[in-house]
């Protein structure tokens, strides 16, 4: 009988047991499925469980490993995928009622990659409807209802990868795949006390993924540590002829070895002083302690500032216009009224009204911003900042007012396609997680991973997990 600890082991440890045949992929998958069946509904974490597929994949993995064909560290590892990734024959609802019956007859490239390395898909993670493409007011803006935070089920996990966050935090899968257009990997990672990697734009194929804002959408892993994120990222990164937005072959793949010396390339860190206007007292104390750790283990760390400009406005109009285009038929047919959230039901009509001239002007500012950030990354390899200025909010919170603080780093990072890795860095007095994010130059995902791994080598926050009944 597996102990609770098994569900929180890092991928490297589970992989070691699987490779040495001390742990059966079939038994591991069955125990995860049982746990997911029992606890998933309490957290609204899953859109669908895929037990038949999972057992089939697990049996195949076990057979291969028994015959000496071990594929690598994800072979036999159970995971969940956000419900906007196509899985052949399995409902893919995009978290939205109008698409509740949608089934694709092919796998998304990310799913194909994970299947190829032997990972086991145990289910589709719940999500905010249409990944929040039209905005939303309440955590319940999902076909599956509000995802509940395993650290406090009266609180939210944050969206739109809200189910992915709940699944990893509650130990319902070894890792999960999420997506971010603006904040949806960093935010649930911070609220749920887990590690999440938002890769460089174009590093991971989006073929078979729902498009919200195509110039900003990205796919990445949520897992127990930066090391785990890197292992998953190395499996899903790479050029894809089916997705023209992926970077060229020679710059797409990511090779990762945890044995690489973290000090082989000293990183120049910049601690951002203007990422947030104000920190909630609940996060200020843990973040102050985290800053001391960062400055101790990266002794050359200097203060840094983000460029100022209308970058959040640019990010907003970019998302609004692109989402309106992505879901044009949904809006014009009137089926958009079938969405759950009162904002989602009507915002698309307004977003259609913004002009092409304003959109292109925003893109010109975006180009200027990208050059400004290139200049900053001539000085720094990695920028560090609190992942969020608050801890997890109650489920019934009006998000449009309670979380309406300025987020220039989120806007800039996503407009410029910068990689970011959020890791837990402490807890509030009410035992809610606090996150720290490491942001690097586009294409330099490794530096964000290297910095976050170094932080986690000297901290224990990522080993904590909630007591899930």
């Amino acid at each position, binding site marked *: 009988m597996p102990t609770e600890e098994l569900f929180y082991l890092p991928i490297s440890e589970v992989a070691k047991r699987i490779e040495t045949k001390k742990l059966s992929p079939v038994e591991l998958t069955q125990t995860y499925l049982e746990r997911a069946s029992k606890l998933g509904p309490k957290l609204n974490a899953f859109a669908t469980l895929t037990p038949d597929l999972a057992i089939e994949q697990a049996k195949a993995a076990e057979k291969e490993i028994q015959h000496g064909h071990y594929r690598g560290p994800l072979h036999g590892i159970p995971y969940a995928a956000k419900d906007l990734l*196509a899985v052949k024959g399995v409902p893919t609802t995009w978290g939205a009622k109008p698409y509740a*019956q*949608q089934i*694709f007859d092919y796998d*998304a490239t990310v799913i194909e990659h994970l299947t190829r390395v032997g990972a086991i898909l145990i289910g589709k993670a719940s999500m905010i409807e249409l*990944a*929040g*493409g*039209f*905005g*939303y*007011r*309440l955590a319940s803006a999902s076909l599956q209802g509000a995802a509940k935070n395993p650290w406090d089920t009266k609180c939210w996990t944050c*969206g739109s990868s809200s189910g992915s966050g709940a699944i990893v935090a509650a130990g319902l899968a070894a890792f999960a795949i999420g997506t971010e*257009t*603006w*904040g949806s990997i960093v935010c649930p990672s911070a609220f749920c006390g887990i590690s999440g990697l938002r890769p460089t734009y174009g590093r991971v194929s*989006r*073929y078979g993924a*729902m498009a919200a804002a195509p110039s900003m959408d990205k796919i990445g892993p949520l897992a127990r540590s930066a090391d785990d994120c890197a292992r998953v990222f190395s499996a899903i990164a790479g050029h894809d002829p*089916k997705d*023209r937005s992926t970077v*060229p072959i020679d710059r797409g793949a990511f090779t990762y070895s945890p044995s690489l010396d973290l000090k082989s390339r000293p990183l120049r860190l910049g601690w951002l002083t203007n990422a947030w206007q104000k920190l909630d007292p609940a996060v200020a104390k843990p973040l102050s302690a985290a800053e001391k750790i960062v400055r101790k283990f990266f002794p050359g760390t200097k203060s840094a500032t983000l460029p100022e400009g*209308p970058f*959040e*406005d640019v*990010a*907003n*109009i970019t*998302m*609004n216009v692109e*989402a309106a285009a992505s879901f044009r038929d949904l809006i014009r047919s009137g089926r958009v009224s079938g969405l759950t959230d*009162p*904002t989602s*039901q*009507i*915002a698309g*009509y*307004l*977003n259609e*009204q*913004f002009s092409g001239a*304003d959109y*292109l*002007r*925003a893109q*010109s*500012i*975006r*180009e200027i911003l*990208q050059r400004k950030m290139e200049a900053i990354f001539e000085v720094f390899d990695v920028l560090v900042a609190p992942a969020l200025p608050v801890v997890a909010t109650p489920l019934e919170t*009006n*998000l*449009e*007012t309670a*979380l*309406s603080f*300025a*987020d220039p780093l*989120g806007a800039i990072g996503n407009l410029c396609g910068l990689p970011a890795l959020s890791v837990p860095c402490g807890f509030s007095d009410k035992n809610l997680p606090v996150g720290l994010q490491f942001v690097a130059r586009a294409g330099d995902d490794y530096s964000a991973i290297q910095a976050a791994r170094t932080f986690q080598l000297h901290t224990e926050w990522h080993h904590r997990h909630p007591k899930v009944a």
Partner: protein
Amino acid sequence: MASAAALVTATGLPASAPQDSSIAQQPPQTSSLSPESQAEAEARYQNILNAYGSRFSDAQKADLRRMSLEAQPALDRIRAHHLENGDNPALYLKPLVEREKKPSAPVSAGAATSKKT
């Protein structure tokens, strides 16, 4: 479109029809808009009503008007940002040499091969 809210709203547009008093939105702060901006926001709202007016409840109409007004300052800021004629948008076609020699036909994820049952 004011502040970030990006963690939860892709639009950043505070919006919609209050369904209960606890989440009622504030009336729009339009006093800072110039007459031209105010007129533009109202025209945008009217455009929506002209096309789709029968689809909305009175509360939704009020919300749409508020959202249109609240979106205006961001548009004004984007237009006020200094740009030169040669400042190109961050949109450009990749040179052909960067593409595959024989690219496969583009397939839209959700279109051709989806089965809506």
